[in-house]
């Protein structure tokens, strides 16, 4: 890798590690200082490497510089000396340590643990979901404020405010960078998984945005979920199931967006573009998820996603998908699951039955409800189908969805 490519690459992989380790050392209330030191380290790298060329081991170089900067900071800053350094000294059993001798542990183990613990801190129940995703992108994935703003289709100021409030909340709730108690892990892990799931969806479903950036968001969600498998505390069946789900979805990333960034519907996708390796990985994770007796929603959704990796439209495939949606809905209602279940029902039990069921759904204000009915009536009563497609168009502002619906509408009008 050449030097201009290397620094952004290292920034992505190392910034978050340095930030996590330093924040853990200083305490979450001083996270900005940790982030500043990490940023400074990269600034110095780009200057020094530009003049002197690449060091032999760039990562090790970054760690040494970050450590020194952290120690310098501790020495220089009175606030730090009086407050945190004392605290750290105290934690080190009152040993005679000044800022200069404080150890900054950048070992692989501590890096992994710090990142995992940071994940639990960010996904603390006191932080609103939207802010959790923003903080995750910023702190755990090393995304800049501009990139996060682009991912959320909003501006820099909004994201800055959101991150600021989230950090304030972390401070006021006195969230610590540590693993939750063993008895609490299950509960807290659920929060972490929800955030990772939302993070993935943010990249996967947000239409009409920078495709490369969206893919990056998805891959980061996969990477963070993978990180959970590195600790015995958190390598639990639902984590494997979520990872399987992400792999199955991500396998279709190339096939579901065309060269113009438009959505390609599942039935129109070229399965040659599906990523076989990711599908195999997903199958492996799905197998590993099947221990224990907890059937999480990620297990069910991974099962549904698995059947979607089989292109052939058999009755058995849709019957299996239908039963998984039944189970998913019995456990927890969601409008999307209700709509998807009804589509699976039409494939497994026939359109007439599905139409009757669809009309009971009571989702008439949802544009996808009318898109579904349009789809179901197509070929049975094309006038009704057209009515529903038009209603659907009226109800949505999504350009991508409008295009898909218009295509369907023109197919039945011709």
């Amino acid at each position: 890798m050449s030097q201009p490519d290397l620094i952004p690459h290292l920034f992505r992989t190392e910034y978050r590690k340095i930030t996590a380790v330093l924040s853990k050392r200083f305490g979450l209330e001083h996270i900005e200082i940790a982030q500043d030191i990490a940023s400074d380290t990269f600034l110095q790298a780009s200057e020094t490497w530009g003049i002197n060329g690449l060091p032999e081991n760039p990562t090790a170089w970054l760690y040494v510089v970050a450590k020194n900067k952290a120690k310098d900071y501790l020495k220089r800053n009175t606030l730090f000396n009086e407050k945190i350094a004392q605290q750290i000294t105290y934690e080190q059993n009152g040993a005679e340590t000044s800022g200069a001798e404080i150890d900054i542990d950048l070992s692989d183990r501590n890096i992994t643990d710090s990142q995992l613990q940071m994940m639990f801190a960010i996904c603390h129940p006191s932080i609103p979901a939207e802010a959790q995703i923003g903080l995750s992108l910023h702190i755990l994935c090393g995304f800049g404020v501009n990139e996060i703003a682009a991912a959320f289709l909003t501006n820099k100021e909004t994201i800055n405010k959101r991150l600021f409030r989230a950090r304030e909340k972390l401070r006021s709730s006195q969230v610590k960078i540590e693993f939750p108690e063993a008895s609490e892990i299950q509960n807290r892990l659920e929060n972490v998984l929800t955030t990772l799931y939302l993070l993935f969806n943010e990249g996967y479903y947000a239409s009409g945005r920078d495709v490369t950036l969206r893919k990056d968001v998805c891959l980061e969600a996969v990477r963070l979920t993978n990180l959970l498998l590195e600790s015995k505390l958190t390598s639990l069946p639902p984590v494997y199931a979520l990872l399987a789900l992400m792999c199955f979805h991500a396998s279709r990333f190339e096939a579901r967006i065309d060269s113009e960034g438009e959505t390609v519907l599942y039935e129109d996708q070229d399965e040659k573009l599906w990523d076989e390796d990711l599908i195999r990985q997903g199958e492996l994770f799905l197998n590993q998820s099947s221990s224990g007796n907890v059937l999480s929603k990620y297990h069910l959704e991974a099962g549904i996603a698995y059947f979607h990796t089989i292109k052939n439209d058999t009755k058995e495939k849709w019957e299996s998908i239908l039963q998984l949606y039944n189970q998913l809905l019995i456990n927890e209602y969601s409008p999307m699951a209700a709509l998807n279940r009804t589509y699976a029902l039409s494939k497994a039990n026939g359109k007439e039955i599905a139409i009757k069921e669809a009309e009971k759904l009571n989702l008439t204000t949802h544009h996808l409800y009318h898109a579904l009915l349009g789809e179901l009536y197509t070929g049975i009563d094309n006038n009704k189908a057209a009515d529903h497609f038009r209603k659907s168009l009226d109800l949505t502002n999504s350009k991508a969805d409008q295009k898909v619906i218009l295509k369907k509408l023109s197919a039945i009008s011709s």
Partner: protein
Amino acid sequence: MKDFLLIFRSPEHTGPDASPEEMQAHMKLWMDWFGSIAAQNKLSSRGNRLVHDGKVVRPGQVITDGPYTEIKESIGGFTIVKAESLDEAAAIASSCPILLDGGNVEVREIAI
């Protein structure tokens, strides 16, 4: 929305046991029915099935096997659904697969 208890009753089983295929087809009917209620966001609690054996306890240390000393049908399970009215709850019950087996559903509003 109010909660309604659906009590499933079926006639005492006398015929031969169902084959695995029949049992699976039967299971699908039930799961599709539950799925349909859940898709309408009207499933309050899926409830439980009851095993066949039971005892009835009466005053004076009288305990008999099975609840069916007087009636020839047994309660096979229960479910709780959400509905605006007793009529709506009854409409939900009207597509219950138990009706295909000669069983019936009792619909009762749960008092708060």
